[in-house]
């Protein structure tokens, strides 16, 4: 209970913040500052992941040609700028690792769960602010450990981001020993960080909603972040356990995944994907939730079918536990399982279709405002649809025999994680930036960034479907080794050039982001005319968020309500007949 007292104490301070610089900006327990810290850390890791992708694309398009700035790499990685095969494998592994664990997942659940949950629910802070701070610093430590693995002997892990045993378990097989162990330790730290975050989010959502904020008045962003937190809470420990076993196989001589002594390589895959498929939904559900908020705002209409949206999120999360085998159709798993996993996988198309149709129906007869967040959100719908539909190709187990482990799956995952999650993240950054930093991002440059990203993104990833259908394998250091892939080399070069342009297209965003921090137009309290609770407090909100605990009278999507003249109706505005509820005096314990 000490924490609640501390929070109450902090509220009294809301106006004369007397925390030291260190307590305020570095070891802050304020969920908003932690969210912002996550944002900066994740954008850095996103940059790292992006740079690694550029190196990968260079090698695939121009195998054996020295990198333009290749001199900076040591002999063991790229002598004279020519990427070595072992370094290429490390690049592929690290690109996946950084993007999934250190960019997309924490951008969604680290940044926006932290920032939005208390603000949107009317709570003064998270349930456990100090654990929240620990969560961030564990995350930073894990990121540093992962970066450090570049500098140890043998380089970083080169076994793919899925670190399939036995390649990952026996140093002689991959040529990497210390790097692989650092990978494992880093992800275990990451798991601890994620665990602390999830406990916080779940407790806060269950116990700290403002009076009147019933579960079915929560915005879809909060619903999806809540369900995501449950998925992370239950899935990540499985990964932690599996990683520890893998580490023991490397270090103390256990044989969980080593077949010479009765271990099972397939057990690793089962454990990994039992975590991994819920993880895939951790990476997309929050994006869906935030896009729902932004589309309703941009269309100035209530979200279409709010309840079915909630049930669709829950349905996807539930199905996520019984479909992991579709990553393993060709793994040597019992073919009987292939059939049952195909059926459960196909079933996921149903809640997904509900969501896409409801987004479209939300825009139907709306009054659509094309601000940058809305543009990115519509791009999310368009691109996620492609990613969802390409998933059906792989869900068919017999077609998957051919396209498994080809560029088709690379295209699919990028349509979901870049076209889906990353566009949603851009939308969220533009949308909540004024609340986070008190200034608006520049609209024009936002639109330029959006247009360039949208075009080049499609030029990069759409052709990957085509070469994937041609049989082009993924994670291939030098495609020209195979006669049947040589005709695809022009396409590979096209993809690479587009990828470089896509990378360059992010410069307007970076400049806009940092320029607006200092020079952007001052933000009003409610620049997007939205209904959420976060738009009733100053931008940025003071420590402790709300001067008086708000009372909530309705759901979050009352746009263009016939009851009022404006086209929005904040959740906290009482209308005639709304009664402020009197609090009951006894807490539940």
């Amino acid at each position, binding site marked *: 209970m000490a924490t609640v007292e501390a929070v109450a104490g902090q509220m009294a301070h809301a106006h004369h913040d007397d925390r030291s610089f260190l307590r305020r900006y570095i070891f802050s327990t304020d969920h908003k500052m932690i969210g912002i810290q996550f944002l900066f850390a994740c954008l850095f890791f996103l940059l790292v992941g992006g740079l690694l992708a550029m190196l990968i694309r260079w090698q695939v398009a121009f195998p054996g040609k020295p990198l333009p700035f290749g001199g900076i790499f040591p002999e063991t990685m790229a002598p004279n700028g020519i990427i*070595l*095969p072992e370094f290429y*494998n490390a690049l592929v592994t690290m690109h996946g690792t950084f993007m999934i664990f250190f960019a997309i997942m924490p951008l969604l659940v680290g940044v926006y769960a932290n920032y939005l949950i208390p603000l949107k629910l009317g709570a003064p802070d998270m349930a456990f602010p100090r654990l929240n701070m620990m969560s961030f610093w564990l995350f930073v430590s894990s990121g540093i450990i992962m970066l450090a693995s570049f500098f140890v002997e043998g380089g970083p892990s*080169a*076994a793919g981001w899925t670190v399939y045993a*036995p*390649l990952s378990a*026996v140093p002689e097989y991959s040529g990497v020993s210390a790097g692989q162990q650092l990978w494992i330790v880093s992800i275990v730290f990451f798991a601890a960080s994620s665990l602390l975050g999830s406990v916080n989010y779940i407790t806060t959502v269950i116990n700290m909603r403002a009076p009147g904020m019933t579960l079915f008045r929560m915005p879809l962003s909060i619903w999806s972040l809540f369900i995501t937190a449950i998925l992370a809470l239950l899935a990540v420990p499985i990964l932690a356990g599996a990683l520890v076993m893998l580490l023991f196989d490397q270090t103390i001589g256990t044989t969980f995944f080593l*077949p010479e002594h009765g*271990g099972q*390589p397939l057990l690793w895959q089962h454990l990994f994907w039992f975590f991994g498929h819920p993880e895939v939904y951790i990476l997309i559900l929050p994006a869906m939730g935030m896009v729902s908020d932004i589309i309703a705002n941009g*269309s100035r*209409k209530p979200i*279409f*079918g*709010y309840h*079915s949206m909630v049930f669709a999120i829950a349905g996807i999360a539930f199905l996520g536990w019984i479909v992991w085998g579709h990553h393993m159709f060709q*793994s*040597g798993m019992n073919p*009987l399982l*292939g*059939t049952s996993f*195909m059926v459960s996988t*196909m079933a996921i198309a*149903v809640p997904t*279709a*509900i969501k*896409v*149709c409801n987004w479209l*129906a939300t*825009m*139907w007869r*709306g*009054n*659509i405002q*094309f601000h940058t967040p809305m543009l990115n959100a519509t791009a999310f719908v*368009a691109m996620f*649809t492609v990613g969802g*539909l390409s998933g*059906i190709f792989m*869900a*068919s*187990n017999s*077609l998957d*025999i*051919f396209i498994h*482990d080809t560029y088709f799956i690379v295209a699919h995952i990028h349509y979901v994680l870049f076209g889906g999650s990353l566009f949603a993240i851009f939308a969220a950054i533009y949308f909540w930036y004024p609340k986070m930093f008190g200034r608006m991002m520049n609209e024009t440059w936002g639109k330029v960034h959006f247009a360039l990203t949208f075009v080049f993104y499609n030029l990069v990833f759409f052709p990957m479907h085509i070469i994937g*259908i041609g*049989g082009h*394998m993924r994670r*291939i250091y030098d*495609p020209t080794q*195979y*006669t*049947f892939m040589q005709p695809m080399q022009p396409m590979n070069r096209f993809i690479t050039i587009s990828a470089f342009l896509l990378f360059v297209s992010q410069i307007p965003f970076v400049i806009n982001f940092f320029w607006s921090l200092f020079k952007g137009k001052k933000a009003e309290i409610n620049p997007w005319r939205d209904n959420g609770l976060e738009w009733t407090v100053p931008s940025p909100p003071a420590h402790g968020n709300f001067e008086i605990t708000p009372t909530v009278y309705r759901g979050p*999507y009352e*746009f*263009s309500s*016939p009851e009022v003249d404006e*086209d929005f109706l904040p959740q906290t505005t009482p209308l005639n007949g709304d009664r402020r509820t009197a609090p009951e005096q006894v807490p539940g314990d």
Partner: protein
Amino acid sequence: MNWLPPALSTYAADIDRIFYVILVITGIIFVAVEVTLIVFMIKYRGREGRKAYYIEGNTKAEVIWTVTPAIIVLALAFASQDVWSRLKNPDRFPSDALTFSVEAKQFEWNFTYPGIDGVLGNGDDFTIRNQLHLPVGQPVVVHTSSIDVIHSFFIPVFRIKQDIVPGMVIPVWFEATETGEFELACAELCGLGHYRMRARVFVHSQEDFASWMAEQS
């Protein structure tokens, strides 16, 4: 529009057919969604002084777009099932097949042939590195195994792929429909030489294959 490699095994056309069926269905859905999106964006673009139509949902519409995809995907799952079990279920493998074995290791394929007696493990077996020879028009079962890490047996023109797991022996079958020389690739990241773990596939006429086999044993 010929993105797929040539289809040169008995079941390759079946897999391609599933591809085209899914391509048409998803293509229609794709066009429908994107066109709707663009039309809505243009037609309902924001104008001053106009208010959006206030509606919170419509159960009938939602039921329609729940049930329709459910039917489509169930049908697709049903359509895929038979090909899958024909390819992967050892009980349904052709009974008149030749039997070879392959042992994968970093980074090569060692194919073992049964010799003229046609049975593996009978003295006259012989092993060739990185070359798979087989007759046209005759089913072949290859027993795959690995001595180090996971590899994946992938012959694009036959549309067959199977991961090879150390500690397991997994059978794979195919029947070529044309003679010629093709490529076999490793499709699962297996270490630094993964990209060059390649074998050549020679499909001979039945007579040529018989004489090749006799010559080798």
